[in-house]
């Protein structure tokens, strides 16, 4: 008996004393240095409530990285992406980024889609001076966290305004109701921005109700909204809830269209909502049938590799990864502050979602926005808002001031189907 204890104690002791691998070796291959692989971190919702957000973004990033590595990498070094799943939860996002930075010594971080998750992770990147690029978090507060946080997409004041303009000016709707997810920074922010423009355009918000992400019963809120007789209901939520909300609204005999933002974008949206979503609108970053050559090549490559149509989150993931690598190339180093400066200096970068020019607030200037309508189970292009091509607002001023209403999107063309 005593002998067993001795053996056990020795075993445990030797594990404690000699078990840890020498750490410095890892830092050399990992990052910081000038040789070996460059390790980039990615965190995303690969599982959980918004799983397709993370999966699409991941596919987009991997597609870009494989192309870059296939062409010899950057500055003579290959790139490895270390991916962490945050299960669509903000607290897990913070854990994932902490792990990426402290254990995997990543030189930069890509992610997230949901603004609440990006907001949870951004302060960690900022305080460690590790640049973070969010492909598709639209809440304006994300990049306000600090000068190491960048984004590749438009922001909610712009998106909310565009949808409000489309509903009031193009569709001539006057009465809207709002159903907002109170647990999501994205949803509350977008709803407020939508409301501001909708009211300014002479519209009326007849009813406002809220739900919490993960709810399954929306009938009570919808019943109240039904009584206020809106012509459209603005629901800036995520695809998972949208499908259910649409189904329950139709169950209650409500026929008005629902409208929303880029949180609707998912291959699962129509799978869940089905016929209930017919005629509904949402704003998005790009449309797969866009005739521009950049989109065409991207869609083709993506389909060959993954056998599915890329959604806008995949496109933005792809763009973020390429912008980051471009910045590494220009910086010539993976050193945090220098890499940060190089990302900030990104100008006229040819992305799938348009030309990318990062402004002084680290948001891209003048990004295109499309309004899509669900027609016969397909996404039909209804409107394009392109500040770069527009005449109403000069592109340069469009997104430089995040809080202003000066980034009036101009309706460039109304191509249909």
């Amino acid at each position: 008996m005593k002998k067993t204890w001795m053996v056990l104690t020795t075993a445990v002791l030797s594990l404690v004393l000699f078990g840890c691998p020498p750490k410095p070796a890892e830092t050399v291959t990992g990052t910081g240095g000038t040789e070996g692989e460059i390790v980039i971190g990615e965190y995303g919702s690969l599982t959980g409530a918004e799983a397709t957000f993370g999966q699409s973004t991941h596919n987009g990033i991997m597609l870009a990285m494989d192309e870059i590595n296939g062409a010899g990498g950057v500055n003579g070094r290959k790139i490895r992406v270390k991916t962490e799943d945050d299960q669509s939860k903000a607290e897990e996002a913070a854990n994932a980024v902490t792990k990426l930075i402290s254990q995997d010594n990543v030189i930069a971080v890509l992610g997230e889609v949901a603004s609440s998750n990006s907001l949870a992770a951004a302060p960690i990147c900022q305080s460690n001076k590790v640049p973070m690029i969010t492909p598709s978090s639209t809440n304006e507060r994300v990049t306000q966290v600090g000068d190491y946080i960048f984004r590749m997409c438009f922001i909610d004041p712009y998106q909310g305004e565009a949808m409000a303009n489309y509903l009031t000016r193009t569709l001539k709707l006057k009465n809207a109701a709002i159903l907002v997810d109170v647990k999501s920074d994205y949803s509350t922010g977008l709803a407020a921005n939508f409301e501001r423009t909708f009211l300014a355009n002479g519209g009326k918000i007849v009813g406002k109700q809220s739900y919490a992400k993960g709810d399954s019963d929306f009938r009570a809120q919808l019943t109240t909204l039904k009584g206020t007789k809106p012509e459209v209901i603005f629901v800036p939520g995520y695809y998972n809830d949208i499908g259910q909300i649409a189904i329950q609204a139709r169950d209650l005999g409500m026929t008005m269209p629902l409208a929303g933002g880029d949180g609707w974008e998912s291959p699962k949206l129509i799978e869940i909502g089905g016929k209930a979503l017919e005629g509904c609108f949402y704003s998005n970053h790009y449309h797969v049938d866009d005739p521009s050559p950049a989109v065409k090549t991207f869609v083709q490559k993506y389909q060959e590799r993954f056998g599915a149509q890329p959604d806008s989150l995949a496109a933005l993931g792809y763009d973020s990864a390429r912008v980051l690598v471009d910045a590494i190339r220009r910086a010539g180093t993976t050193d945090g502050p220098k890499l940060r400066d190089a990302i900030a200096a990104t100008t006229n970068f040819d992305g799938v979602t348009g030309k990318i020019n990062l402004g002084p607030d680290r948001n891209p200037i003048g990004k295109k926005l499309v309004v899509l309508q669900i027609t016969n189970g397909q996404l039909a292009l209804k409107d394009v808002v392109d500040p770069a091509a527009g005449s109403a607002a000069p592109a340069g001023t469009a997104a430089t001031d995040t809080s202003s209403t000066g980034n009036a999107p101009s309706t460039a063309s109304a191509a249909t189907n």
Partner: protein
Amino acid sequence: MQTLFQNLLNGIAAGSIYALIALGYTMVYGILKLINFAHGDVFMIGSFVGFYCGNALAKSNPDAPPFVNASLTMLLAMIICAALGFLNERIAYRPLRNAPRIASLITAIGVSFLLEYGGQFVFGPDPKFFPTLIEKNIINLGGVVTTNYQLIVLAVAIVFMGILQYIVYGTKFGRAMRAVSFNFETASLMGIPTDRVISTTFIIGSMLAAVAGILYGLSYPKIDPLMGIMPGLKAFVAAVLGGIGNVPGAVVGGLVIGIVEAFVGGSQFSNYRDAIAFVILIVILLFRPSGLFGKYEPEKV
């Protein structure tokens, strides 16, 4: 006025699902004085069995009338949940029959976590979409709109509550159950096979949870391994509200919670919908700890 009736109807439909789950809590508590926290997760398993079985039947047996497939799905869910409830009691609770009550309570919480995270491991953490077992129709009753789903939920819930009422108050087994509930030791001295009665109670409760799981899946087609937590907690509140251990009380409690939630959800306080059930719990515990229908029995020291 229409809004009022619409909310009432929505509340009754949601409440009847709570009531079915609450029955399981209340029966087990009535007999063992144990709050079976894993009950909400048995409900979740019921939904998942319905998901897999419904999809499989739709593929293998597409020509059968939907009613047959739906019934088969429900039957299979009931059988699997019954087995789960039986094993749960046999493995986790029976060895602790004579241990302090807190031990079984903590075990119940453990079983609950096991099912939730085991479920995430087996089914995956992503939400799944419950198959449409029966074609959905919208029924308009003079401005108040309902679907055949809500009516099915209501009808099935009433039928199963009726069956339960009959078992408890109309059969010999029910008398044995009530005897065990009244006094466990005396009942066993009188020759009542208490272990068998307890096992059967778990089986019946779990079957009701399976029914609730299928009905929930029909009405709210998004299911995931953690879906049992909230309905489970609310059904527990419903059972306490009606007087835990009291069968009609659980039904009334479930309906009250469902209706109150529908009205709160439709008001400007919709943010607080989930909180309201727990506010009710606190109020009940403060002013009428034995619930609406419970008998107040001072504890003898």
